[in-house]
Every structure is written in structure tokens, then in C-alpha cells.
């Protein structure tokens, strides 16, 4: 047990050190922006990891919740006169509530029903965002008012780097702590075997629902942060492809590992930026790299490397 919690503390410390140290090597504001995008995606991926890695359920509509959060901070201040920070919270409540309503009946079933239901939900959200152009600006998107906190206008890539980095740190800390609570243990139990968990007295449906709601709230908060940082939002952000991107982050990084979700986000956000050098073959390279990751690091980047590390350490000791 002690090795568990110390490795978790290590994750948090490494992350904090990375966030603090990276600006020292950043030559321009563009790097701050890419890093901030990584932190935002990582936040959503960590949430999704609670659902996928711990509760063993797949959500194919996660960008829908991301979109709800993003449009909450756009529509709230523009049309309803709600301040941005309150809209951010409202979006999270809305996303969580919707996850609860949809998850409650669906999660009583076993198998891939949640995946199908979330797929539908994600598509629905993106259709509503595209068609209700009076509220959302339609397919061309809408501007998002700047976030103002206590008279401080939050803008600029560097500022947002710190804001999103802080949010990610808090999000990681909560997700890591969750692993050690009764909820976390129940989730892991039902990931390993639903039947065994049920026999042990775990209310399977309730814990799955909790994981789903947590994941939705994380995604919504990440969406709000992105919208506030960009100052502009389009319905693509709630689209199916973006949902797939989130799932890929979790799987490539390593199912069930909080650090893995972050690494997955790093890979999927920075690779397209690095691969611009390949121009026409950019998408080809991206697909190829993800395939290679999945073939050679089947458990995901973080768990595979960790296993390799342990193997080496064992070899050196012997």
C-alpha cells in the first residue's frame, strides 16, 4: 500500500515540477499556448480515465460534455448576463446533471450500452450546437467574452498556461486521491470483475454512474477553460472526432493510469504540431505513430514503460 501512495505522490510532484520548469525552456508564447492546450486536454482525459480505466466503461460522446462546458461560458455571459466564472460552474453542473440523467437508466445494463448511448448523446449535443444558431452562432461558432476575476482580465498565452496548469494540478490531485477512497476501490473492483464486485456488495450501477458524472464534469470544466482561453468556440469541439481523440489519449497513455492520461494528452496535442514538417504526410505519420504505440506499448505508454523500468531494476538487482 505504501508504495502505491508514494508513486502517486511522485506523479503529482513530477507534474508540478514539469509545469513550473517548462517555461524556463520555452522560447516564445506559442509554446505556452501549446502547453496550455495540453493541460486542458489532459484534464478532460483524466476525467475520462476515471470512467474508462477505473470503471471500465467507454464514453464515445465525451466531446459533447466538453462542448457543453465550452458553450456555457460563451452563451451565459453573451445572452443571459451570467458572469463567466458562474457560467463555468453552471456548465459543469449542467454536464454532470445530463450525465446523471442519461447514465442512470443506461448504466444498469451491462456491456456496450453506455458506449452507444454516449455516442448518440455526443452527436445530439453537436447537432443542437450547430443548428440553434440564434444562441450558438451555428457552424461558424461564436465569440467568448474574456474572463474577468476580481477586476483582473485573464488573457495572454502565458497567463493561461498558469491557469490551466493549476487546474490540471488540482484535477490530478483529486483523481489520484479518488483511487484511494472507497469509491476508487469499488471502481477498480468492478473494472476487474463486475460479478465479483457485486458479490462483494458493491452497488455496481451507482459507482458506474458516479464515475460517469465525474468524467462529464472534468470534460465540461476543460471545455470551459478552452473556450475562455481561445475567446472563440465552434461546434467542432463537441464533434465525434474530438470524442475519439479523447478516447485515444486515454488508451495511448495507458488505461487506468492518471499519469498515462496526461502523457496521452501530451502525445496527441504536440504530435500534430511537430509533424507539420512532414506537410502532406502529416496525418499519415500521426496514424502510423499511434499504431506503433499500440503495437509495441500495448498497455499504453506509461504502464508499459513502468513495467520495463521494473524489469530493468529487477535485472540490475540480480
Amino acid at each position, binding site marked *: 500500500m505504501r508504495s502505491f501512495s508514494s508513486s502517486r505522490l511522485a506523479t503529482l510532484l513530477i507534474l508540478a515540477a514539469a509545469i513550473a520548469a517548462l517555461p524556463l525552456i520555452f*522560447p*516564445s*508564447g*506559442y509554446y505556452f*499556448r*501549446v502547453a496550455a*492546450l495540453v493541460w486542458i486536454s489532459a484534464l478532460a482525459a483524466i476525467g475520462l480515465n476515471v470512467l474508462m480505466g477505473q470503471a471500465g466503461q467507454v464514453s464515445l460522446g465525451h466531446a459533447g460534455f466538453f462542448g457543453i462546458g465550452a458553450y456555457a461560458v460563451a452563451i451565459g455571459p453573451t445572452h443571459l448576463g451570467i458572469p463567466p466564472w458562474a457560467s463555468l460552474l453552471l456548465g459543469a453542473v449542467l454536464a454532470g446533471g445530463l450525465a446523471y440523467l442519461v447514465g442512470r437508466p443506461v448504466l444498469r445494463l451491462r456491456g456496450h450500452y453506455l458506449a452507444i448511448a454516449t455516442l448518440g448523446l455526443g452527436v445530439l449535443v453537436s447537432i443542437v450546437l450547430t*443548428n440553434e*444558431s440564434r444562441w450558438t452562432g*451555428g*457552424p*461558424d*461558432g461564436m*465569440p467568448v467574452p474574456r474572463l474577468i476575476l476580481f477586476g483582473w482580465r485573464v488573457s495572454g*498565452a502565458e497567463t493561461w498556461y498558469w491557469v490551466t496548469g493549476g487546474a490540471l494540478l488540482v484535477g490530478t490531485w483529486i483523481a489520484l486521491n479518488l483511487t484511494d477512497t472507497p469509491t476508487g476501490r469499488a471502481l477498480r473492483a468492478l473494472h476487474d470483475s463486475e460479478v465479483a464486485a457485486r458479490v462483494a456488495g458493491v452497488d455496481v450501477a451507482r459507482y458506474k454512474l458516479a464515475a460517469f458524472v465525474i468524467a462529464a464534469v472534468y470534460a465540461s470544466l476543460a471545455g470551459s477553460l*478552452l473556450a475562455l482561453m*481561445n*475567446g*472563440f*468556440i*465552434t461546434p*467542432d*469541439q463537441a464533434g465525434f472526432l474530438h470524442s475519439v481523440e479523447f478516447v485515444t489519449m486515454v488508451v495511448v497513455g495507458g488505461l487506468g493510469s492518471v499519469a498515462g492520461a496526461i502523457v496521452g494528452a501530451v502525445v496527441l496535442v504536440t504530435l*500534430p*504540431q511537430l509533424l*507539420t514538417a512532414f*506537410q502532406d504526410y*502529416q*496525418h499519415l505519420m500521426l496514424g502510423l505513430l499511434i499504431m506503433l504505440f499500440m503495437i509495441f506499448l500495448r498497455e499504453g505508454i506509461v504502464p508499459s514503460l513502468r513495467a520495463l523500468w521494473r524489469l530493468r531494476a529487477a535485472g540490475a538487482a540480480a
Partner: protein
Amino acid sequence: MKPISLKALVGAGALALALGQPAMAQNTIKIGSVLSVTGPASFLGEPEEKTLKMYVDKVNAEGGVNGKKLELIVYDDGGDANKARTFATRLVEDDKVVAMVGGSITGTSMAMIPVFEEAKIPFISLGGAIEIVEPVRKFVYKTPHTDRMACLKIFEDMRARKITKIGIISSTDGFGKSMREQCLKAAKEGGVEFIADETHGPGDADMTPQLTRIKNTPGIQALIHTGFGRHGAVVTRNVRQVGLTIPFYQNHGVASKSYIELSGEAANGVRLPAAALLVAEKLPDNDPQKPVVLAYKQHYEKTTGQPVSTFGGHAYDGFFILVEAMKRAKSTDPVKINEEIEKTKGFIGTGGIVNMSPTDHLGLDLSAFKMLEIKNGDWKLVQAGS
């Protein structure tokens, strides 16, 4: 002695590259572009990218601008506004471009505007919607005609044919929806009244129910379709199938040879507003645009081996508005270049004759659109009032 690891080698190589770049950058003028070369809007981004590359090479071969060679940096956003925004930041902060021509669609352009406004770098967008230049932003321009202009051009033609009561069928995609709204808003100014208003989904294969309803609307004199791509042809065929004989107007979004091919016989008599580029050879010899559009068409078709499209033409216009402004400014200072772009007067492009002003960052008037009619599988220029 340890051998040098591969990692160290790659690191050293990267370092050398990073150090080598600024030295080269001294003698070039960097122009940035973010285009939707892949993804759903690739039919816009692809010809735009080809056009820009083609003409940067041409200008460089002729000695560059103010004695300096141009360097074009293109990023592909895949139609994603968030990616576009990131690349825009990269162009400004990392590549340090002096100006930007690009942004294939309205969504990506709108997302990039704040970046260039804050950096005070001129940004010539290739997106369609009027909101890019209205309200006027100090550093933002665009070259394509707006939906509103297409509507007004159609209304102008209708007035000449004494048509006042009309119907509209529009696609629910972004382009179709936006043009529908602009047409409805401009109806009063154009002197027409909409008495039928139907929509269809972008993927629909049959629009006869909507068209039958339009046919049964008493007093209807003409019909407009808004929306681009394949369904333009489907609507055209359906119009003939339900026996609608009233004048039928298409929009500039279907203005391609493939539209005529897909529609077949049904396209005969269909009218639409489009840029002069489509009828380059048929323009009267005294038309000032004729030499420009002919030269672009020939150069594009010779270099790429593909038929010319109006979308690449937008990139041509944006690029040369910028090049001429840089020549006049005799400087690579973005603010000075911006001042000169705003003073663009009488620039003859593929989209029309551009006259910018501090209150007009589009600079095109209705004369930029030609009214075309399809006759026996080809475009024909409509003379006013016929």
C-alpha cells in the same frame, strides 16, 4: 569512451537547425498562411495553397519584393478553428511573419482574428461571411464576395425581369443557412418578397416534396437555392422533375463545371452569380478584369493540371493585394504594410476591382459579380436586362 548515442546526435542536429534558421531569415520576407488543406473544406484550402505556392515562386523568380525574396509558411488546420488559432499564434510568435493571407473558412478566420489584432499584423482572410470585416477591424481584410452581395446580385437580375414574389430552398449547412439569412434580410433593399421558404439537409438525395410545396405556392415567380456541393445538382434535377418552369437561380457555391455535369439537361436556363474567373475567355475584350483572370487561369491550369476554381482566385487576390502594399510601403514593418493595404485602390483581381478604405475592408461592389446562365453545358454571360 562511450560512443555518441543516437539521442545526442538527434539533439545536436536539432540544435544546429535551430541556430541555422535565423541567419537565413534575414534576407527574406515571411508571409504566413493557415488553410484548410485537408478535411471537409479541402475543396477551398487545396486550390488556395497551390495558388499561394505557385505565385510566391513566380514573384521570387522575378526578383522578389523590394529586393527581398518571399518565404511562405503554410499550416493546415483541417477546418478546425482551435488548430487554426494555435497555428496563428505560431506564425506570429515563432515564425514572426509580417503578414498573413489565409483562413479558408469563416470559423477558422474568426478564431484567428484576435491573434493578429493583438499582434498588429495584417490578416487577409479568404473566408466567406461578412462578419469577418463587419465591424471593421484595423488589421483584418477579406477577398471573397459575401453572401449578401450574391443575394443582391440575384435581386438585381430579378428586377430586370420584373420578378417580385419569390421562394427560397436552402441547405441547412453553414453556407446555405448563412446565405438564406442574408437573402431574407436583403429582400427589402432588393425589392422582392419571399413567399416560400423551405430547407433540406446537406445529405438529402431527394427534395421533391419541398419543391412541390413551392410549386403550389400561389403567385410565385422565381426560386433561389442556397448551399454548396453535390446537392446543388440534386435540387436542379428535382426542380425539373416536379415541373417547375419559373426562373431558377443557383448561388456562387455551386459554380463549378462538375455542377453542370451532374445536373445534365436540367441545368439549362439556370442562372447564378459568380466571379468573372469562370467565364474568363467569354469576357468582352474591354473588360479590365479579362487579362488578369485569363493569366491566372492559364498559369494555374498549366502548373497544376487541374481546372481553375474561384476559391484559388481568392488566394491570388489576397496575395497580390499584399505584395503591392509591401511594394508601396517599401518596408517590412507590419503596421506600415497594413496602412498601405487599407489604401488599396483600383486593384484588379480575379474577384473584381478592389477599392479598400478605412470603413471598407472588402472593397468589392456588386459589379464584381457576373450573372451567368447555363446554356448547353457551358456558362454564358447574361447581359443586364435580358
